[in-house]
């Protein structure tokens, strides 16, 4: 197996902005007939990334068909308390007599939902702020850059905890909102850097001479060329959101009625999973969380290839 790092690092990798024309070329070369977007073709060609995409698909299927796969409801509590793994309960039961395996299956829904929604929302904020700052420059850029840099240095988890503590309602909506508010800065900085290199390209100048307005140039000339970077940003935000949800729920800041892997770990450590010896209750949520993060990490190997052509496996 060749690692993408080993193929790439013999040549000095260019820093900063992604190679967007390369994505186009790959799209034309490989994707013309079946009309797949160029960035997807590059992702799919990378072996590790393909494996990660399969893993992610498995998680999505589990989440969608949770009621079919899970043997019991996630909150049905008529079983023995804190039982170890048996044939009837593959991962044992919780201290309240719920089936751990069913909770794991339903928990996939929460993680994927938070990852997708918070990922999309913070990507939208990051793209809007980054594009505006990078394209307009001048005072607007100074002001927006200040907020980007502020967002980068403020410690995220304490901010999340403080925001969540003041909220009158608890629930997934709150967690998604808090993650979005605190998680857009990094993506915005990268997109700003990218657009600064794009805005002086010839075709942008041509569009400007043709009399196109700023909004049209950003939407039609620049945004399509940033597709790969937007995908990169989304993957990063979704991954961060899944981890943040687990952390916040583990700290007890989520809605205890929602079944998520973070809530499970919280209840396992509070409910004495360690002292009763019901190790499966404690081990299982961490392993599925790690597997989901692994899927994202593997996909990211391909996503890196999007923004850095030296990493591509052809």
């Amino acid at each position, binding site marked *: 197996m060749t690692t993408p790092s080993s193929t790439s690092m013999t040549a000095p990798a260019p820093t900063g902005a992604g190679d967007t024309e390369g994505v186009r070329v790959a799209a034309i070369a490989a994707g013309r007939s079946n009309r797949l977007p160029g960035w997807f073709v590059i992702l799919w060609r990378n072996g590790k990334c393909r494996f990660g995409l399969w893993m992610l698909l498995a998680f999505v299927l589990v989440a969608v068909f949770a009621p079919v796969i899970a043997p019991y409801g996630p909150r049905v509590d008529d079983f023995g308390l804190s039982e170890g793994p048996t044939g009837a309960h593959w991962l044992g039961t919780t201290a309240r007599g719920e089936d751990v395996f069913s909770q794991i299956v339903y928990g996939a829904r929460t993680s994927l939902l938070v990852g997708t929604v918070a990922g999309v929302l913070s990507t939208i904020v990051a793209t809007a702020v980054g594009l505006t700052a990078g394209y307009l420059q001048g005072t607007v850029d100074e002001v927006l850059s200040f907020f980007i840099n502020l967002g980068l240095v403020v410690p995220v988890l304490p901010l999340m905890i403080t925001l969540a503590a003041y909220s009158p309602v608890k629930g997934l909506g709150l967690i998604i909102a808090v993650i979005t508010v605190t998680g857009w800065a990094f993506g915005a900085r990268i997109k700003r850097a990218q657009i600064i290199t794009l805005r002086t390209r010839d075709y942008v100048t041509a569009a400007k001479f043709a009399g196109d307005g700023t909004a049209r140039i950003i939407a039609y000339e620049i945004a399509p060329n940033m597709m790969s970077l937007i995908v990169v940003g989304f993957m990063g935000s979704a991954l961060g959101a899944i981890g943040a949800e687990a952390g916040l729920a583990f700290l007890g800041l989520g809605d205890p009625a929602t079944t998520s892997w973070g809530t499970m770990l919280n209840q396992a450590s509070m409910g004495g999973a360690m002292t009763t010896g019901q*190790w499966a209750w404690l081990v299982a949520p961490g392993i599925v969380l790690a597997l989901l993060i692994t899927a994202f990490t593997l996909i990211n190997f391909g996503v890196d290839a999007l923004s850095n052509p030296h990493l591509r496996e052809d």
Partner: protein
Amino acid sequence: MTYFVRRAGFFLATLWAAVTLNFLIPRLQPGDPAQAILSRLTGKSQAVDPAQLEAVRKMLGAPDGNLLAQYGDYLGALAHGQFGISYTYYPYTVTDVIGDAIPWTLVLVGVTQILSFFIGTVLGAWAAYRRNTRADSWITLGSTFVGTLPFFWLALLLIFVFAITLRWFPDGGGYGGGSQPGWNWLFFSDAFQHSVLPGLSLLITGPIGWILGMRNNMVQTLGEDYARLARAKGLSRRRIALTYGARIAILPNVTGFAIALGSILGGTVLVETIFNYPGMGRLLLEAVSNKDFPLMQTLFLFTTVGVLIANFLADVAYGFLDPRVRRTEAA
């Protein structure tokens, strides 16, 4: 000089923004903040005692007046170091309570982060030096794999294995077994025993960012023209790796160190909570669950200001280490 002036300006501006954010967050919710806090303290059904309401208003530092007057009072109180009285640790002031917690977090985070930085930088440089060998792929793939494990879950497993099953280390707290905080050997050895597991859970995932960052930077610097020239001159591989590769590759990690501090402090909230460690992170969560708003606000402010100061110091250090930054910012 422009570089340093700009960095100082940015530091002051972010400091002001953090202080203002801290003022605005409790006032973001609709309605009277004092009323809202009281109804949370007493429960929604009970009637609110006007005297209590008055007391909470006093605590918020702004009995009457519009937002601007409240803001002025708030800044005045900050300038005098008045952060209010903790509900949880009444009658102690918030500053007393936080003062007791700061050394614990400072030592735990300080020691583990410096160790992580050294381990990560050395391993990353080694992987770049021996790139495309088995050592390289072990280090790179191994750290990628470990990096996917949720570290608070690792902390729970550490407690389960080493504290509850094997009983090698205590399962939580900062000290115990009859020792009292003070400058004596008993306390130090006891505190060390209690810090092994929390420290370990921060150290397992801590170096990974530095390993991967250092490796990628150094592979890049080793491909630069000056490294090729050094090879052509016939310098030894070790000399090229150390003085031509590592020395320059380490620079981005210096700024990375300060930027990472914010997320590291977030991580200590989780670790300190799991181990019931008497630091600022656990205090923050305790303040949240006891609805101790003055304590919570001040902790958020202190943490943010601490990270801002660290960032400023890193920027200054970076300016001295890498003259190129000074020149580009001045231009």
